[in-house]
C-alpha cells in the first residue's frame, strides 16, 4: 500500500511539472510566430522559407515557426479550422483560401486588418479586383491580403483545331460557336475529344452560369440565393449536350476526380483533345521541370476567353479564386504577425512567387515587370480576363452549396437526369441549406 502511495505521489509530481512546463513555454511564445500553409505546394513553401529567413534576419530575437499542413485543399481547410479552434494551436499567420475567408471571419478566427494596412504604402499597388478576395464582412472590412489570383480561360490545341480546318486565332463569341467547333473537330477526326468541360463547378459550370442573362448563384443586392433561374437550366443543358453528343470525355471519366491529370498530361500534349477550360496557371503543368513537361506547349496551345451565352456584354466570363494571407485573431503579437505578412507580400517576394507559380499578379507593380510579362507567352492574355472575372460567394455554407451544384452537373452528365430535374433538386437542396427565407426566385 505504501509503495502504491509513493508511485501515486511521483505521478502527481511529474504531472504538475509537465503542466508547469507547458505554462512557461506559453509565456515565452510572444516572440514566436507560427505560420500555417499548405505543404503540397512547393512554390508556396519556398516563399514561406524565404520570408522566414528575411524576417528573422531583420527582427532579432524573433523565431518564425513554419508549420506546413499536409493534404489537398479540402483537407487543408479542415485541418486549419481545427487548429484555429484552440488558442494553443491557432497559427499567427496563415494561408487562407479566399472562398473560406468569410466563414472564418464569422467564426472569429481572423484579425481585421484595416488599421494595419492604412499606413502600408504598398497596399495601394494592389489590384482593386484582387483586393475583393480579402473582404470578409458586409461592411467591406479587409481581413486578408491576396497572395495571388487566377482566371479561367479556354485552352485549345492548335494542331487539332487546325487539322479540322479551324484557323487560329479561334475566337468563340457564343456558346453555339463552341458547339460548332466541337462538332467540326469530331467530324474531321472522331478519335479526338473535341471540347471537354469537367462535370464540375469552378472550371466548368460557373463559366456557363455567370455568362447567362440572369446567371448568378447569389443576388448581391437582395443578399439572397437564387433559385429557379433559367440560366441554371441552360448551363446544365449545355453540359448535357457536349456529353450526350460525345464531344467531351466519357461520363465515367468526367466523374473521376483525377481526370485533369490525364487531360493536361496526355490528351492535350498528344493532340487527342481539341480544347478544355482550365485555370490561367495551366503553363505551370507544362513548364520546364514540371510534372507534365511539354516543351512545345507554347507553340501548340492557345487561349480564348470563355464566351457569354449569346455574346451579350461583357462578351466573356471567367471565375477567379486564389489564396490569401491572414492573421489569427488570437495572435499574441498581431503587430509582428502583420509585419511578417507585409514582408511575404513585398514586391520582390510577390514577384518571385507569382512568376514561379504562373499565377496572376495581385500587385500592379509586379504586373508591370518584364519578368512577369515574359513568364510565359500567355501571361498577358489571362491577366486581361481578370476584368470580366467573378469571385464565388464566400459564405460559411458555400462549401455545401458548391457540392449541391456539383451534384447537379454530375446528375445531368452521368445520372440520366434532365437539366430541369437536376435544377429542381438543386433548388430544394439550396432551400434546405440556407432556409426558405434566404432564397429569391428568378
Amino acid at each position, binding site marked *: 500500500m505504501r509503495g502504491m502511495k509513493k508511485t501515486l505521489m511521483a505521478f502527481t509530481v511529474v504531472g504538475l511539472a509537465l503542466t508547469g512546463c507547458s505554462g512557461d513555454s506559453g509565456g515565452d511564445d510572444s516572440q514566436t510566430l507560427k505560420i500555417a500553409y499548405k505543404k503540397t505546394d512547393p512554390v508556396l513553401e519556398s516563399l514561406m522559407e524565404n520570408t522566414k529567413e528575411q524576417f528573422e534576419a531583420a527582427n532579432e530575437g524573433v523565431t518564425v515557426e513554419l508549420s506546413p499542413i499536409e493534404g489537398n485543399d479540402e483537407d487543408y481547410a479542415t485541418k486549419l479550422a481545427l487548429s484555429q479552434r484552440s488558442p494553443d494551436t491557432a497559427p499567427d499567420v496563415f494561408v487562407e483560401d479566399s472562398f473560406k475567408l468569410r466563414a472564418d471571419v464569422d467564426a472569429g*478566427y481572423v484579425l481585421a486588418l484595416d488599421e494595419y494596412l492604412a499606413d502600408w504604402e504598398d497596399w495601394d499597388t494592389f489590384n482593386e479586383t484582387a483586393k475583393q478576395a480579402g473582404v470578409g464582412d458586409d461592411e467591406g472590412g479587409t481581413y486578408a491580403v491576396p497572395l495571388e489570383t487566377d482566371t479561367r480561360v479556354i485552352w485549345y490545341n492548335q494542331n487539332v483545331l487546325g487539322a479540322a480546318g479551324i484557323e487560329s486565332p479561334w475566337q468563340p463569341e457564343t456558346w453555339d460557336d463552341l458547339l460548332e467547333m466541337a462538332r467540326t473537330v469530331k467530324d474531321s477526326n472522331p478519335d479526338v475529344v473535341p471540347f471537354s468541360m469537367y462535370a464540375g463547378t469552378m472550371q466548368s459550370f460557373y463559366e456557363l452560369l455567370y455568362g447567362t442573362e440572369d446567371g448568378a448563384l447569389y443576388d448581391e443586392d437582395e443578399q439572397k440565393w437564387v433559385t429557379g433561374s433559367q440560366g441554371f437550366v441552360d448551363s446544365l443543358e449545355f453540359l448535357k449536350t457536349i456529353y450526350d453528343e460525345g464531344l467531351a470525355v466519357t461520363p465515367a471519366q468526367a466523374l473521376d476526380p483525377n481526370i485533369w491529370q490525364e487531360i493536361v498530361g496526355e490528351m492535350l500534349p498528344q493532340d487527342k483533345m481539341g480544347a478544355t477550360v482550365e485555370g490561367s496557371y495551366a503553363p505551370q503543368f507544362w513548364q520546364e521541370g514540371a510534372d507534365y513537361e511539354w516543351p512545345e506547349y507554347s507553340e501548340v496551345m492557345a487561349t480564348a476567353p470563355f464566351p457569354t451565352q449569346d455574346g451579350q456584354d461583357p462578351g466573356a466570363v471567367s471565375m477567379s479564386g486564389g489564396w490569401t494571407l491572414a492573421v489569427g485573431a488570437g495572435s499574441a503579437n498581431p503587430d509582428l504577425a502583420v509585419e511578417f505578412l507585409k514582408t511575404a507580400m513585398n514586391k520582390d517576394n510577390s514577384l518571385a512567387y507569382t512568376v514561379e507559380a504562373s499565377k496572376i499578379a495581385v500587385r500592379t507593380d509586379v504586373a508591370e515587370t518584364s519578368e512577369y510579362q515574359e513568364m510565359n507567352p500567355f501571361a498577358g492574355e489571362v491577366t486581361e480576363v481578370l476584368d470580366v472575372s467573378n469571385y464565388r460567394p464566400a459564405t*460559411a455554407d458555400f462549401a455545401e452549396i458548391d457540392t449541391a451544384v456539383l451534384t447537379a452537373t454530375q446528375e445531368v452528365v452521368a445520372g440520366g437526369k434532365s437539366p430541369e430535374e437536376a435544377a429542381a433538386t438543386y433548388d430544394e437542396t439550396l432551400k434546405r441549406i440556407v432556409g426558405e427565407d434566404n432564397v429569391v426566385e428568378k
Partner: protein
Amino acid sequence: MSGASVAGTAGAAGARGPRKQDSQTPGRPAPRVRLRRAARLLPLLPAVLLLLLFLGGPILWAFYGSFTDAGLTGASARNPDWIGLDNYRTLFTDPQFPRSLWLTFVFVLGSAVVGQNCLGLALALVMQRASRVVAAIVGTCVVAAWVLPEIVAAFIAYAFFFRDGMLNQLTALAGLPGVDWLYEYPMLALVLANIWRGTAFSMMNYQAALNDVPPEITESATIDGAGGLQRLRFITLPMIKRSIATNLMLITLLTLGTFTLIYVVTGGGPLNASTTLPIMAYEQAFQYGDIGYGTAIAVVMLFIGAVFSIAYIRMLRERKD
C-alpha cells in the same frame, strides 16, 4: 480440453463463491466481508475511470453536440446554439439519409454477415481436411489481406478495380469487355474488397471453434451413417453456435464503422452511390463544416450498433441455456 470451457468453469465457481458466504452469514453480511468485497473491486477502478473518460466522455459529447448547430467555422463555431431536435428533424427528411442507411445495410449484410462469415466458415471447414501444405498456403494468402494496414489494403483494392486496373487488364487478356467497376458497380466492388480484406478474421475464429468440436462425436455420427452435410448441420454447426454469434457481432460492428476503405476506393461516389453513414457523417462534419449535423449522424450510427450488439448478446444468452 479447451481454454474456453476451463475459463467457463472457473467463472462459474467464482460466481458461486460469494453466494456461499451469504448463506453462511444470515442477514446482512458482516462489515469485514463487505469491505473485502469492495476492496476486490478496487483494481477495476482505474480501468473503469479510463473507460468513462475516454469512451463515455466522447459519447456524451457527441450526444450534446448533436443537439447544437456547432460548426467547424462560420458564426456557429464561436457560439454554438442549442437547437433541440433540429439536426434529427433535418436528418430524417434528408433524401440522402434513407439512401445511406440502405447502402450501409447492403455493405454490412453483403460483406460481413454473408461474405466474410460464410466464406470464413467454409475456408475453416475445408482447411481442416486439406493437406498441411495447402492449408498453410491458403491460410497465408487469406491472412495477408488482414495483416495489411487498412489504407494499404484500400489502395490495393482501388488499383485492382479502377478503370485501367488489374481486374480489367486480366479480363482483357481473357478477351472479355472491360467493366468500369467503380463507376458502374461501386457497391459490389466495395463489398468484394471488404470480403477479401476481412475474411481472415472469421476464418481464424472458426478454425479455433472447429478445433473444439470433439472428433469422437463426428466419428460416431459417421458410423451412424450421417453424410457430410448432415454432420455439418446437426453436429458441427450446433456445437459452434456461440462462436458464430460472437463472430457475427464482432464483424458486424467492425463493418458498420468502415470508413477508410470506402473513402479511398470510391470516396462515396459516383453520385453518392456508395455514401454509407460513416462517409455521410464525415462529409457533413468536416467537408461542409457542420459538426452538429455530423454528430447527429454519428449518434444514429451508435444506436444502430447498440441494437445489433443487444440482439447478438441476447442470441448468446439463449444459446447458453
